[in-house]
């Protein structure tokens, strides 16, 4: 079939994905893209174990576009996951096409980030990445699990800018 879910999630593969999204959309395996994930052997093991019976492939950013193309052409269904919107923006710039949607799950606080929603912390680079993808026509929706109400990038962006202004 294709890539049935493209998702930013800094926990990559965990309960919300394996128990909830996998019931909502067809999935045979996970395609995980991220230079910082592939080089972490321990994390790789944990992610594979978290996926249970589902297969996991972990790839470098540079391999991303090729892998996404294979996934889109395959008869199987995949969830495409990276832990940062910056990776997705990079993939888009490299010409990758995973469809017109991008789901955003949890993004934890990091140095220099602002907590925008309960489980969403963004920094300026994330902001740029979302802004770029949005302007390229990607429908970005923030939603941890399918039952939750979606928030759009313009809504989240507005909130981020308000918080940023307060901080200054």
């Amino acid at each position, binding site marked *: 079939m294709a890539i049935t879910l493209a998702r930013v999630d800094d926990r990559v593969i965990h*309960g*919300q994905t394996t*128990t*909830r999204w996998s*019931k909502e959309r067809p999935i045979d*395996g*996970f*395609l995980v893209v991220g230079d910082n994930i592939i080089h972490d*052997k321990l994390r*790789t*093991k944990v992610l*594979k*174990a978290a996926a249970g019976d589902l*297969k*996991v*492939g*972990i790839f470098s950013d540079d391999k991303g576009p090729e892998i996404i193309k*294979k*996934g889109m*052409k*395959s008869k*199987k269904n995949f969830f495409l996951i990276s832990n940062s919107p910056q990776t997705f923006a990079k993939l888009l710039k490299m010409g990758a096409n995973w469809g017109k949607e991008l789901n955003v799950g949890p993004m934890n606080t990091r140095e220099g980030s602002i907590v925008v929603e309960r489980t969403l912390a963004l920094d300026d680079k994330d902001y740029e990445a979302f802004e770029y993808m949005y302007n390229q026509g990607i429908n970005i929706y923030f939603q941890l*699990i*399918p*039952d*939750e109400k979606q928030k759009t990038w313009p809504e989240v962006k507005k909130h981020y800018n308000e918080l940023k202004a307060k901080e200054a």
Partner: protein
Amino acid sequence: MRILVTTHGNMAKGICSSYEMLAGSNNKIDYLTLDPDDTGQFKQRLTQKIEQDQDDLLILCDIKGGSPYNECFTKYLENPQKIRVVSGLNLPMLLEVGLSLLSEPSLDHITDLAEKAGRKGVCVAEDSVSSDQDIEF
């Protein structure tokens, strides 16, 4: 179909909140706790929960032979057509049956799901996972 989770103390409340975090809220899942200072109200509250709806009911209990289980077992014996009871409650069990409600399972089927998922959910962490790529397109 509806589900009632019942336990000694707050486990039932807690596991429902864990369920919600993973799977979202579901008004077909309810809980009932046996409180430490209970002096017989549990039975009454259980009866109320059972009678407030005519739907079939799957009851998940924390431990076989405990008071919540014993009361529920009595209710099952009184009405085996509409009620089933499974003990050994755990989160994989609750997730499996909770998410199965969408497909309107029969009482026999959902009881079977509860038992299987509950058993399958118990495993020992092992360092046998290979870090090799095993994805196939």
